[in-house]
């Protein structure tokens, strides 16, 4: 590889905001206002604040991707990078967003990293030197990081790898400012560390300025040297607190906790289970079986038909046995790719098992048959409720109240329960709103409420706490603990140990199935296995 060149020098960027504010097109109130802030070159800043404080808006503005002349958005004051408007200096700042799927532009790893440098009209030889260097810097080329070749398909990467690829694409532009907008909210704990460490390594090397927005303070606390807390425009806007991490976290601990920020060492108070696992452990027979999985093999793919034969899909996980009992929690844990969600969806009667079976006890099926996958949709929702990871996937109407009434209306009963749910999950002020316009926490609460409105005996949740602030987290955990005590069975797929601790019950750990050996190598592999 060509030696690093003089153009490799990154000039860290300075940020100045003076009375800056922004109102999005079509909104009556500003997203952010009266911001006065100076960030020195090379500083590393964690940006905090309650939802609605305009953190993402600020990052988008710094990345130069906020609005344009033709729409009727409104800017006040000035926001400059090195004294120049961000939009006029493309490539000076690099932005990473939350959803890993949309951080990848092209289908081959090398091409994707090169994309930004191409757009900045960097000469070809220099681009490839930068691509190699950036991939090394984010650790995607070490054996542990996947040892990726330049033509490796980007579709085959994990979430953490995709985010590191995005970081490499940003580094290849040699930006003086790196902007991270909740970069690890969608990742499992392993992915979170991968991304954090890659960011730290790259900052140490380039000296670039960093601004990161993230709810989970503990991930970034030791990496940043300053925390800035923004205040929502409704509370006056501007900067509420600004200083070294320890100082801000001590001074503002109570305020930050109230705002739902995950301050280090803070586990929000939740309602305790009335009956814990230990107590019931001695006499398990008291809890009713509702669902049983026997030697289950699961896959999202459907069987294929070829030459009059049905070929079953390759299961992502097999040999799973589990029991779901009334009033007890079952937590499914394990690394990404172990088939946790696939198993949960199969258990919930939404996917057909590849092998083995899921059987519902009479107490649950109530005459609907033994196999949940064969139940009709309205039979299913009054027995097993499933809350998906992405709430928007489950919205079927245009109004929060209709959304809640949907299940009961189809079933012909249970409409009276909706009022109680609305109040319990603090949705009262939102009943007339469009579900798609709610905040992340509100969407999560709504999606749980809509599924519960059908009064299922088993509730299945897929990563219910991903990306949630501490307040929503505590509400959800407390609410589920109540449900459990009232006799509902709760099955959750989660990486969140504190969450499973609140729910109690049993843990089912799934580890990735041993990867299948490619056909060309299977012969020698088999021989080796035979020799051993």
């Amino acid at each position, binding site marked *: 590889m060509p030696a690093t060149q003089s153009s490799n020098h990154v000039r860290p960027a300075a940020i100045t905001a003076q009375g800056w504010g922004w109102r999005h097109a079509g909104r009556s109130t500003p997203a952010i206002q009266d911001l006065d802030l100076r960030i020195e070159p090379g500083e590393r800043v964690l940006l905090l604040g309650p939802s609605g404080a305009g953190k993402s808006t600020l990052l988008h503005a710094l990345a130069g991707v906020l609005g344009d002349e033709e729409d009727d958005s409104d800017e006040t004051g000035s926001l400059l990078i090195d004294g120049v408007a961000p939009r006029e200096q493309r490539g000076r700042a690099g932005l990473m967003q939350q959803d890993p*799927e949309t951080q990848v532009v092209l289908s081959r790893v*090398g091409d994707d990293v090169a994309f930004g440098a191409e757009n900045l009209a960097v000469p070809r030889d220099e681009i490839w030197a930068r691509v190699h260097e950036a991939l090394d810097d984010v650790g995607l080329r070490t054996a542990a990081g996947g040892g990726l070749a330049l033509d490796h398909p980007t579709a085959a990467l994990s979430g953490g790898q995709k985010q590191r690829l*995005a970081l490499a694409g940003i580094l290849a532009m040699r930006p003086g400012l790196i902007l991270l907008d909740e970069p690890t909210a969608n990742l499992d704990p392993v992915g979170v560390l991968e991304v954090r460490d890659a960011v730290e390594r790259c900052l140490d090397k380039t000296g670039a300025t960093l601004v990161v927005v993230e709810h989970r303070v503990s991930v970034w606390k030791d990496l940043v040297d300053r925390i800035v807390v923004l205040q929502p425009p409704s509370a006056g806007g501007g900067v509420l607190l600004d200083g070294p991490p320890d100082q801000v976290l001590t001074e503002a601990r109570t305020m930050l906790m109230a705002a739902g920020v995950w301050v280090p060492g803070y586990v929000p108070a939740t309602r305790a289970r009335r009956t814990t696992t230990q107590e019931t452990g001695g006499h398990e027979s008291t809890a009713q079986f509702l669902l049983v999985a026997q030697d289950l093999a699961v896959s999202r793919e459907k069987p294929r038909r070829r030459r009059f034969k049905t070929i079953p899909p390759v299961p992502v996980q097999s040999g799973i046995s589990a029991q779901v009992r009334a009033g007890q929690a079952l937590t499914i844990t394990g690394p990404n790719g172990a088939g946790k969600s696939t198993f949960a969806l199969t258990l919930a009667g939404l996917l057909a098992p590849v092998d083995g079976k899921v059987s519902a006890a009479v107490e649950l099926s109530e005459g609907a048959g033994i196999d949940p996958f064969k139940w009709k949709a309205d039979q*299913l*929702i009054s027995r097993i*409720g499933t809350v998906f990871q992405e709430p928007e996937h489950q919205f*079927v109407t245009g109004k929060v109240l209709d959304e809640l009434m949907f299940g009961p209306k189809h079933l012909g009963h249970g409409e009276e329960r909706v009022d109680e749910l609305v109040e319990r999950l603090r949705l009262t002020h939102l009943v007339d709103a469009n579900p798609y316009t709610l905040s992340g926490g509100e969407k999560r609460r709504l999606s749980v409420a809509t599924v519960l409105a059908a009064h299922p005996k088993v509730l299945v949740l897929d990563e219910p706490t991903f990306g949630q602030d501490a307040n929503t987290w505590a509400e959800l955990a407390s609410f589920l603990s109540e449900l459990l005590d009232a006799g509902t069975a709760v099955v959750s797929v989660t990486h969140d140990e504190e969450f499973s601790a609140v729910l109690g019950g049993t843990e089912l750990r799934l580890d990735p199935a041993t990867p299948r050996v490619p056909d060309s190598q299977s012969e020698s592999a088999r021989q080796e296995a035979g020799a051993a």
Partner: protein
Amino acid sequence: MRDALNLRGNQALLTRANPLVKFVSVFLISLVLALSIDWVSASTALVAELALFPLAGLTLGLLWQRAWPLIIAAAIGGWSTAIVAADSGAVLLDVGLWSISEGSLQLGLGFMLRGLAIALPAILLMTCTDPTDLADALAQKARLPHRFVLGSLAAMRLVGLMAEEWQTIGMARRARGVGSQGSPLQRLKATLGQSFGLLVQAVRRASRLAITMEARGFGGAQRTWARESTYSLLDVWVLLGGLVIAAAAVLTAVGAGTWSFVWR
């Protein structure tokens, strides 16, 4: 598992040819075949195309896997043409309303062969061409606007994601009590609802992807290309090959006296 659109592992000769040249050759063959409706030109082209399979790394199994709907459609199209076309020549089969004569059989056969002969070059092109390389060639060599070409390329990547999302949304909606059972009208309603859900997700994804691209400096007037799209000696052969197949199709048909323009 190899991605259908990824060419890793395909070492065939034609993968090294310039995508734009391949594209032009394919276009030439399809254009000529679209001019006539006889079976001689179509079968000449078809035979030549089959001979190109190894050069593109395509096998009959792979072809069936990727293009079975096309192949079945061509067969059905040919069969129904043979049945319903006006009889001419000796009648071979007569079942009440339907009859197959020499003339109608020829027409049906021509129809089927033509469908295959026009579709095959496109499948050959897809087998030995990476979409990214095609985009490079279209932007650098054919001088199409790079905003349009790269925008389409990035959008194509989302299509695969959308297929997964469709399945997830289907399950998520069943979990809300929207079933695939019921009357055709109910099913239609359910499918429309699911499409709306997918549309919302597609728009969200697309706008986030657009921000990602813009934040990486996409959309400026000046841009360099990390991968240079180049011509080589091989491309001369590819172009010649296209010309020869097209010419052979016309000449054999004219020689056999079967060439007939579609508009006559």
